[in-house]
């Protein structure tokens, strides 16, 4: 099978630059600092036993949260300039006049960025090995976490690719991508809080569908599901925002639905980006013009 040429070229070029090494180095430095801090805090806790399972949960959640936030920041930065950058460098026309399908260009660009994220995730595995020293976390749970990282990164990357095709300048595409990302993370949360406060006061005991768009809510739901709802729920302080307590919640795990929603968003955005990048595309609304 022939590898996507855009992906192959991007991998070659990106991995050759100091920027790639810098991102990996900085990323691991932050994660290592967090892991060391947690280990140090545990070692100085006079009340803790030698083997404390709570430590592993704390360390796991600490590293997982930092890693998730880093991925949310890095993924849009890697993709927002992918197509707009080609346009700015005047290389896009050269690609479009070849027999490479617009969809291959879009997917090649996304996969190249995702491979970078994948390298970051793989490089972080030794950090998670600290957790295994103390027990309490299974390999399956780490696999779930990494899977969620990848799907969220693809979703965030797709937003970047989408704006990169619709906006001509890389800077504008980056700003718009982060704006949408911030709205998904915090805007939906504020709307959810106001909605529940106005219509349900404190009695709302379901999962607000709007939060399926929120990657932080999905991530929080994943951690609470893995720990039985007792730990790591970063939204516990907000009354009525139910995040999926494993003991009482009967429906499918919210993080799972969140994953499906992320996949759906990615497919739609990549499809729209492929249409937009095609210079001889038919307008989506051409049927309206005919009328």
């Amino acid at each position, binding site marked *: 099978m022939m590898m996507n040429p855009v992906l192959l070229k991007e991998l070659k070029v990106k991995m050759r630059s100091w920027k790639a090494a810098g991102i990996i180095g900085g990323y691991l430095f932050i994660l290592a600092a967090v892991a060391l801090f947690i280990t140090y805090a545990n070692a100085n806790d006079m009340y803790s036993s030698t083997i404390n399972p709570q430590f592993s949960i704390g360390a796991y959640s600490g590293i997982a949260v930092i890693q998730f936030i880093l991925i949310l920041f890095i993924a849009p930065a890697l993709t927002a300039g992918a197509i707009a950058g080609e346009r700015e*460098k005047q290389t896009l026309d050269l690609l479009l006049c070849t027999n490479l399908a617009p969809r291959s260009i879009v997917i090649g660009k996304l996969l190249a960025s995702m491979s970078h994220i994948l390298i970051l995730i793989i490089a972080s595995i030794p950090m998670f090995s600290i957790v295994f020293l103390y027990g309490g976390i299974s390999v399956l749970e780490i696999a779930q976490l990494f899977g969620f990282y990848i799907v969220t990164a693809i979703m965030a990357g797709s937003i970047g690719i989408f704006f990169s095709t619709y906006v001509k300048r890389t800077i504008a595409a980056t700003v718009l991508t982060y704006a949408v990302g911030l709205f998904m993370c915090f805007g939906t949360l504020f709307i959810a809080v106001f909605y529940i406060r106005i219509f349900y006061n404190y009695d709302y005991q379901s999962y607000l569908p709007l939060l399926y768009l929120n990657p932080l809510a999905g991530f929080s739901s994943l951690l609470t599901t893995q720990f039985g709802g007792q730990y790591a729920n970063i939204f516990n302080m907000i009354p009525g925002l139910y995040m999926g307590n494993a003991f009482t919640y009967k429906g499918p795990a919210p993080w799972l639905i969140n994953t499906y929603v992320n996949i759906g968003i990615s497919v739609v955005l990549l499809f729209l980006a492929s249409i937009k990048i095609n210079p001889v595309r038919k307008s989506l609304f051409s049927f309206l013009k005919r009328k």
Partner: protein
Amino acid sequence: MLEIKSLYKRYGKFYAVEDLNLSIPEGEIFGFVGPNGAGKSTTMKIICGLLTATSGEVYIDGVDALRQNKKIKEKIGYMPDFFGVYDDLRVDEYLDFYASVYKIKEENKKKIIDDLLELVDLSHKKEAYVDNLSRGMKQRLCLARSLIHNPKILILDEPASGLDPRARVEMKAILRNLKDMGKTILISSHILSELAEMCTSIGIIDNGKMVISGTVADIMQQIYSKKLIKLKVNDKLEEAVTILKEFPFIDKITTGENLIQCGFDGGDEDMSRVLNTLITRGIPVATFAQLDGNLEDVFMKVTKGGEEK
């Protein structure tokens, strides 16, 4: 090989291309000449599938290029007027990337790349980074890129623009080679004389319309249906003009300091009769010559000064 019928491209009320008709037989080099903003690049982008046409038909090797866009991409090699290169890619890697895009087999890639680099005289820069090449070298590399899949027709949008005289000569030599290899080439420029010597035929476009097309000789014939005569007299300028007016085949007489220029619609015998009459009647003629039409004059004449839009 390339046929354009009644092509239109409209942006709002402005027509970038208007009722353009063109036919280029296989193996010909067609020079597409016009001032900046005349519609050359727009037409070329439509042919390459980088722009949609408002209406009209474009056929490449018998394939409808506007409706079967995917089919014609294998047949076309396109070099835009402005293009960029990828940072951190070497010359051979750059060509290898485009070879992969065109799904050229791995075992054939190396030979094709080596041959193309030799054709554009960049073999010695094979392992240099693209970003470090001079402008002329980048233009030649881009030309090699457009040839990587051995297309039948080359669409070259001002390939020599911004090049120094030496690089222009080198580019012309490469294009002559391609002509000898039997490639059909559509090449644009805003300098007529640059294309006249290498093109089998040319078309002059202005304000989106094809003003005139044909071989260079045909165009000169069409523009200068009458010959021009220029003569210099040492004295008696007004008397010379009066004598010239007596001949029915002479018109449009203009004068300068001891200089006379006029239109002439006669044969060689009439020409010698005019000169003989002037000398017999005592006009001190210093020079007497028939003017050939200048290519730049032709360009200025048909493009109304070539002003930018």
